């Protein structure tokens, strides 16, 4: 594992800017539970729902991307990670987990997110901006403050598909709006409003 670097995140800044001055929100954090994120989010007065999206992808589908097209496995994955009532969440921080999903799994996951997010709620997700690589770097992210994150590279993983602005807009077409920010690590930080 490499040394963590701390950098500003425009996406994060937008995410927290949108929920500023509000307490008691339900926030879904898919980084896997860690002390920094727990402290930051609970100190803002929010209730945190934690799960590790990338670990769950590995546990459910293994390393073979073709397994992500299996409908029963997709349903199992959704039950394990997004089994909440409609309109449950005011915010969801998905980090870079969605970029490791094939189109079938991503479409099912985004549909479920649309259901469990409250109208007006925000999703933050990161996608590789490199459209030619079949493998993309994976990172561990930790919240530092409302504008910056600690980023640690943890190797490369096969990309589920190529992500560009156009297909991200299609992916989140049911949502109200989508906004992109490009980062130094060649990531697209994406803010989606339900």
């Amino acid at each position, binding site marked *: 594992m490499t040394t963590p670097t701390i950098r500003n995140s425009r996406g994060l800044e937008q995410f927290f800017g949108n929920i500023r001055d509000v307490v*008691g929100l*339900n926030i879904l954090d898919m980084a*896997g*539970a*860690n*002390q920094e994120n*727990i402290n930051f989010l*609970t100190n803002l007065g929010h*209730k*945190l*729902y*934690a*799960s*590790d999206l990338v*670990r769950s992808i590995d546990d459910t589908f293994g390393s073979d991307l073709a397994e992500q097209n299996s409908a029963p496995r997709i349903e199992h994955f959704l039950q394990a990670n997004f*089994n*909440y*009532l409609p309109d*449950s*969440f005011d915010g969801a921080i998905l980090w870079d987990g969605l970029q490791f999903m094939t189109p079938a799994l991503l479409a099912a996951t985004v549909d479920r997110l649309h259901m*469990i997010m409250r109208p007006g709620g925000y999703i933050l997700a990161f996608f590789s901006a490199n459209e030619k690589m079949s493998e993309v770097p994976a990172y561990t992210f930790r919240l530092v403050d409302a504008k910056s994150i600690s980023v640690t590279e943890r190797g490369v993983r096969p990309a589920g598909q190529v992500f560009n602005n156009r297909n991200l807009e299609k992916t989140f077409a049911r949502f109200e709006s989508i906004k992109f920010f490009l980062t130094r690590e060649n990531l697209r930080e994406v803010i989606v409003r339900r």
Partner: protein
Amino acid sequence: MSPTPFRAADSTSINNIGKAVRVEGRIISREDIFVDGQVEGSIESPESKVTIGPNGRVKATLSAREVVIIGAVQGDVTASDKVDIRKDAQLEGNIASARISIEDGAIFKGSIDIRKPEPKPSPVAPPQPVAASAPVAAPAPPIVVNPPAAAAPAIKR
């Protein structure tokens, strides 16, 4: 030979559920509990600490002053003081606690609700004698100490 006199456990003793032990049901304790075996049901120790050891496999709700998890727990955890999730621990359930500590390497899935302890009520003033001629005041409305919380997202089972 006279029988060995029975000695009650002192207040610092720990109830140990060893790794070869399996318990089904409700455990209630006023002393610390160390679970290194299997428990299904519930564990309640409101004044003390519950520790799930490295071999502990627990499918139960845990309620205690302090909960330390080193092994695996499936169930909701409530602690009036602190929940401490150690490296290699696995917890699937919802946490409600005043404080939480989680080490890198721990696996957790569920919600975290930080509940600051209720401030202790100020001492009640001693009752004053009521003058014979003074009108008797109407009783005050009841004080709701814990109003019902807003509905939280329910996990569909």
